């Protein structure tokens, strides 16, 4: 059992030394997970809004399935995306397996249900407050969706952070579709898994501390933006 202060010292040393390999890993982690969240938001926010406002047969079923998909096991998603992207798979011709692009795709699939399901809840709550007023003001469906997304922006930032947290923390999907190739597809979580299996527990723990610190900084940044925005828009 490695002692935590020792791991902390290693983490600090890693950060201070400015080890380029470390920063490449941190950078790739952020790039992959943020790209996945943007991709998921691009599809998930309008999808959530449509589900919040739409009344059609099968809607309840979709909502339940979407909510359930928030708990998709990353390895299963990784496997599914792997099969899609493998040479013989339907998307094999693009040859993106074991590239960061494949990792973005896999994480986006993981994050999409979270973004869509939580956005649906946020927007449905807002709609119950706004619905009558917006209809009274002559706002059509499309405009109402835009209004709700904009007025729900602060809550939706939290939704995106939940998605980001899921993406940056998972290891199964990126491991399978990325392959943990040093310098190409190695991210924080796969590096930690590797160091752990190699037995270098202090380094693994040190990397873990760096990862947690990065996540805290991303959240602090989002929080600051939110507070700043709220002071202007109420």
């Amino acid at each position, binding site marked *: 059992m490695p002692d935590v202060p020792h791991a902390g010292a290693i983490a600090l040393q890693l950060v201070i030394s400015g080890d380029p390999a470390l920063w490449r890993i941190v950078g790739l982690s952020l790039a992959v997970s943020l790209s996945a969240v943007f991709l998921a938001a691009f599809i998930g926010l309008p999808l959530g809004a449509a589900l919040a406002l739409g009344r059609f047969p099968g809607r309840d079923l979709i909502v339940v399935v979407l909510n359930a998909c928030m708990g998709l096991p990353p390895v299963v998603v990784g496997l599914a995306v792997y099969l899609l992207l493998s040479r013989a798979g339907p998307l094999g011709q693009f040859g993106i397996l074991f590239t960061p692009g494949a990792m973005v795709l896999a994480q986006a699939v993981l994050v999409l249900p979270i973004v869509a399901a939580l956005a649906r809840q946020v927007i449905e709550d807002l709609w119950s407050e706004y619905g009558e007023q917006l209809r*009274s003001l002559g706002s059509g469906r499309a405009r109402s969706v835009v*209004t709700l997304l904009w007025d729900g922006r*602060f809550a939706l930032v939290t939704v995106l952070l939940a998605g980001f947290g899921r993406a940056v923390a998972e290891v199964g999907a990126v491991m399978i579709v990325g392959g943990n190739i040093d310098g190409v597809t190695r991210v924080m979580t796969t590096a930690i898994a590797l160091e752990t299996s190699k037995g270098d527990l202090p380094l693994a723990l040190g990397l873990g501390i760096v990862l947690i610190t990065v996540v805290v900084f991303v959240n602090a940044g989002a929080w600051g933006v939110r507070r700043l925005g709220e*002071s202007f828009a*109420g």
Partner: protein
Amino acid sequence: MRAPETRLPLALDCVRFAAGGVAILHDVSCTLAAGPPAIVLGPNGAGKSVLLRLCHGLLAPTSGSIRAGNRAASTERTAMVFQRPVMLRRSALANVAYPLDLPRGAAKQKASALLGRVGLPHLGGRPSRRLSGGEQQRVALARAWALDPEILFLDEPTASLDPAATRAVEEIVREIAASGVKIVMATHDLGQARRLAGEVVFLHAGRLVEHAPSAQFFDRPQSSEAAKFLRGELLA
């Protein structure tokens, strides 16, 4: 620019409304023509809010018909101010500009002028949700006014306001009425009804009990329910 067709008179014919099997309005028939404010009066639960929502096209009658001018009732060129104003999460000015179908600059200018008319020229840049209840209701009035409605429905707009804020709202309602907009306002406040009414639509338990010019209604109510209500007795 006003289209030549008009949303007045507002004609209700045997309007019934039920929700979840519970009848809320029974066979309401009446006609509201252009002119001084119509006050929809009655105790809580009489069906005033539902009546206004039906006339504004937010609800559809279970049976019967509502015509605004020569078309079915709709939100088009009518506006509504609710008991609790729903402020969009943006500035007061942006709230008033929201319904305006104008280029950005022109919309801002008009919204700014309207905020001036409701006595809040200096609050345009403030986040609307940080305003007081009375200020929010005035922003809501400006926003409804921005729609350039022919009929303005008000659903107990002062029910949760203090006397000073109530007075400000009533002043604005008078000014909007004076600009030629038909006011249809629900209230259970007798004093307010006396101050504003040109005609009174008196509802009790989902039925239209009396519809009369205000002078007649307040001096010589024709129904025993209205007489009781005017004496301040509780209607069962």
